[in-house]
């Protein structure tokens, strides 16, 4: 197609760059869209404000506002994400895509202890997913409380836009995702079920896609200022996961990391035996893809990530045929074991 009369391509490209990633999270859970949206609000505010914010603000995933407050106590703020609204000194109640919000303005910002106490007790909103923006430290901090401020120990300090993202940090996120979401079988939600029959070591036929989605969520939550994309087409194939960020000038992107994912199997979902050479072929192919896609896209770092769903886990010995080449090409190699039953996990780890 050619340029559409009255809709210059230059204008469309500028819009696409300025709003890179909006809508890319449409299939992600609401708590994650909320986190991404709040990070965007903070970043837009940082760019638009004539003076830096001085006072903290807390954002809650609660589009209707708290039940403990009447609508007359809340102030409506349309276009909250345009960067022109002062954020500090307020409790914000927003939806999963926070263009708009309602706010409770605190006449005086309390001490941290009093703030948490008021949120948990007086307002009874300690269980709402929340993001606390604190401009007081240098650099300013964003703290994500996925289970609410009532669960103070469950907090993640979030990287804001422009922060360097290195491969070690990315692989650390995958380590955590493996430990909590992949290592042992899960029954809920259905999308997290990886085994057709765990006792017989039969992965689901779409185990790769399921693992990929779980990792995408984990990476997006760890790096909400970026866009984590799946299945981006390439001339030489289709890459699995990539972490992208739009940066000035328009049309410029940083591709922080590219991950090729492989699932190693002993059996198919229906119980057919998978040849022992299939794993070696998958690893060889995965390394080739990790190198080719990284070079084609100018990605800063790449890794081959294998998820071992075989009857017997090999550990890193399966990488021996490719270790030298991976080192020369600076592609990280990782493998994580997955267990089909909790008993398998216990036997292997005790």
């Amino acid at each position, binding site marked *: *197609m050619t*340029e*559409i009369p*009255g*809709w210059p*391509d230059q*204008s*469309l*490209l500028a*819009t*696409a760059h*300025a*709003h890179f*990633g*909006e*809508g*890319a999270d*449409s*299939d992600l859970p609401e708590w994650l869209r909320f986190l991404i949206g709040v990070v965007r609000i903070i970043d837009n505010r940082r760019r638009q404000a004539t003076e830096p914010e001085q006072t903290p603000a807390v954002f809650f995933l609660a*589009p*209707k506002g708290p039940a403990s407050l009447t609508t007359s106590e809340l102030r*409506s703020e*349309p*276009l909250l*994400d345009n960067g022109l609204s002062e954020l500090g000194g307020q409790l914000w*109640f*927003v*939806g*999963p*895509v*926070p*263009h*708009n*919000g*309602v706010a409770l303005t605190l006449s005086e910002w309390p001490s941290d202890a009093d703030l948490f106490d008021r949120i948990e007790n007086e307002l009874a909103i300690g269980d709402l997913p929340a993001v606390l923006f604190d401009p007081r430290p240098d650099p300013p901090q964003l703290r994500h409380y996925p289970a609410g401020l009532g669960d103070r120990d469950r907090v993640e300090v979030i990287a804001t836009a422009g922060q360097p993202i290195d491969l070690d940090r990315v692989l650390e996120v995958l380590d955590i995702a493996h430990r909590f979401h992949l290592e042992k079988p899960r029954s809920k939600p259905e999308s997290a079920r990886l085994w057709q029959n765990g006792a017989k070591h039969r992965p689901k036929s779409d185990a790769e896609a399921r693992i990929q989605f779980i990792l995408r969520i984990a990476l997006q939550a760890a790096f909400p200022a970026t866009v984590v*994309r799946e*299945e*981006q*087409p*390439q*001339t030489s194939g289709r890459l699995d996961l990539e972490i*992208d960020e739009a940066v000035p000038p328009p049309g410029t*992107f940083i591709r922080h990391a590219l991950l090729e994912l492989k699932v190693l199997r002993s059996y198919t979902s229906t119980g057919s035996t998978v040849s022992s050479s299939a794993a070696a072929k998958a690893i060889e192919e995965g390394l080739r893809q990790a190198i080719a896609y990284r070079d084609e896209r100018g990605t800063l770092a790449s890794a081959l990530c294998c998820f071992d769903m075989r009857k017997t886990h090999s550990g890193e010995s399966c990488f021996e045929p490719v270790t030298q080449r991976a080192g020369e090409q600076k592609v990280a190699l990782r493998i994580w074991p997955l267990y089909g039953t909790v008993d398998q996990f216990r036997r292997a780890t005790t």
Partner: protein
Amino acid sequence: MSGATTLALPDVRRQLRVIAILAGAEAAVIAPLPARQLHTIGYFADALAPVWGLQILDPKLLKRNEGPTSPALQADIDRLVGCGVLLASALRHSEDAEGLWRIEADYALNHDFAAPILAETRRFERYARELDYVREVVFAMAGLGAIGISEASSSDAAYSNQMVDSGDLLDIAPVDSEPNLSVQVATRFGELMAPEVALGDAEKVHLYVRELHNRLAANRD
């Protein structure tokens, strides 16, 4: 005596779309929705449906200076209010650009009735996708603000097509023809970003609405 009536599937789908728009409006913190905004969002949900591979439900509409107004959509709204699925508030009269008086209201969902409808609809993958799509349209348009939503059609590629005068019939799903202009522009985003980035369907909708926002802002300056 049973008062049940059997509705044709297109009627059911249009009513589901109204419910989905208002559910999205709540999540986007823009509910209750005035009638004008509800009709405008309904129009965009129709016009951009092919971006998601979905069917346009109301392809022909009368082009009006004040923006899209669908008699079929209003009939759906009135029926849903009558059933108690929608709540109407702030009833008032207003005179439109053609000097006709109409009853206006703000609309919100009655969750006691709407929640089970939405839950049941989500069980069917095809209709769950439609609900997701409408929700995304509402989320995107919420970024325009109340005035922006009301004015959005004036910048919309298909609705502002100067080949169709106010008072004439606008067809946003011409048979054996290219997709409507709005769909073409949304799709163009994907073409321009390729091969660097493969945009998803939701991204194209959001970017198209952001482009409308830029045009509305430029028109005001």
